């Protein structure tokens, strides 16, 4: 267990708790101005719940304590993101309900199952549709960046690495081009260039679907979807030449996949499906 990681996570938790409480206070102030004592009381309850979001060192073994810290930090990252993004969009009782359900995850025994908790949070936030996806992506990013920037990529757990891979893959998926540069990842993730390159290199070794050539990153899935679009929409093929130089094998595979899909669509059409 690294001292850096423990201190970073504890500081992250304290910081997020105080930010969340400031936002809750703001909502409470608003409720009181509107003489809505019910909402104000509910928010007080929420404030108390957030105040307890720090694992008790005495309840865990040293390794378990770190896992619990990770879980609490991730939950708080989502809670803070939820309040920041949705406080002026969603009604307070809806925000409160999602927050309480997330808090109950970490308090209800999932604090030692970081991966399971992250999945549950994702499912919960998906209930808020696009806004929820945005909150999940940004909450995950902030949590990951804090650990990476303070203590290094090596301090991420296996599940953390997986979350990082997911974040990068969804970043690649969200752009128009068939690939992204390391520089663009740095800017969007908020991680230094040298560090980013090291991370992507490691991730591409761990997960073969992440492709890295020079300073260009892509995924097999991205190339396949992009090629399908090139064929259907006949969009500019300038990028195809670049892909041909960088990822020729994946490009070949993408064309084969696309041809198979087209043949299947053709077949379905003729069979009247």
């Amino acid at each position: 267990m690294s001292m850096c990681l423990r201190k970073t996570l504890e500081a992250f938790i304290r910081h997020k708790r105080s930010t969340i409480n400031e936002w809750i206070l703001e909502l409470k102030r608003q409720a009181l101005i509107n003489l809505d004592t019910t909402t104000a009381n509910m928010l007080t309850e929420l404030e108390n719940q957030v105040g307890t979001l720090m694992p008790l060192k005495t309840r865990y073994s040293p390794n378990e304590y770190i896992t619990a810290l990770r879980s609490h930090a991730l939950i708080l990252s989502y809670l803070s993101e939820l309040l920041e993004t949705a406080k002026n969009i969603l009604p307070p009782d809806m925000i409160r309900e999602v927050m309480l359900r997330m808090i109950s995850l970490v308090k209800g025994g999932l604090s030692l199952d970081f991966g399971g908790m992250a999945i549950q949070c994702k499912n919960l936030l998906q209930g808020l549709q696009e806004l929820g996806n945005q909150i999940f992506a940004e909450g995950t990013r902030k949590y990951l960046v804090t650990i990476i920037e303070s203590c290094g990529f090596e301090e991420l757990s296996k599940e953390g690495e997986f979350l990082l891979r997911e974040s990068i893959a969804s970043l690649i998926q969200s752009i128009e081009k068939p690939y992204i540069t390391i520089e663009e990842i740095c800017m969007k993730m908020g991680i230094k260039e040298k560090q980013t390159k090291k991370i992507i290199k490691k991730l591409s070794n761990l997960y073969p679907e992440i492709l890295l050539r020079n300073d260009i990153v892509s995924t097999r899935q991205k190339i396949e979807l992009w090629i399908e679009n090139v064929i259907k929409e006949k969009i500019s093929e300038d990028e195809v030449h670049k892909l041909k130089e960088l990822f020729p094998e994946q490009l070949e595979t993408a064309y084969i996949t696309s041809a198979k899909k087209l043949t299947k669509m053709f077949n379905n059409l003729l069979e009247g499906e």
Partner: protein
Amino acid sequence: MISTENIAEMTKKLEKLKEKIREESIDWWWLDQGDAALINITKIEYDKKEVKYVKMPKVSIKTAITILLNNLKNVYNISKGKRIQIMSIINEELNELLKLVENIREAHKIVEELEYLDKMINSIDRTEEEKAELKKIIKGSINWIKEIFYIKPFEWGKRKETFKNVTKKLNKTIIE
């Protein structure tokens, strides 16, 4: 990566498609039972030294699939660097063929409906002059559809609404 299995699988599927097209196109009387030359396709000729891309004059859908099949069979013999370009051409032309068949099927439904209305004209209570006028509209519409497919088959998407509306109006006049 392109493997012999991949090519064999694709070839098998395309051969099945060709057979299905052959069966279905028997009904496309207005397109010479599927023998009408409608689409430009690239024939990829390969000898040991170089790959030639020959843009063919318009061919029928059945011939287009045969050319695509030959192109596909050639892919495996060609050097890696050139395969991507060939696969890209095969994909584009396969996509065009798919769109073309989609268009033909849509148009064929309208042509069938127009044919049906043409038969119904004789039994309606109208003057001979009026009946001749309606028949003229139907014949003109079918010819126009035919012309679109012979000249610019991919423009069907922009024009189909016109024919749908004409058919709807004829339907109202003749049947209702």
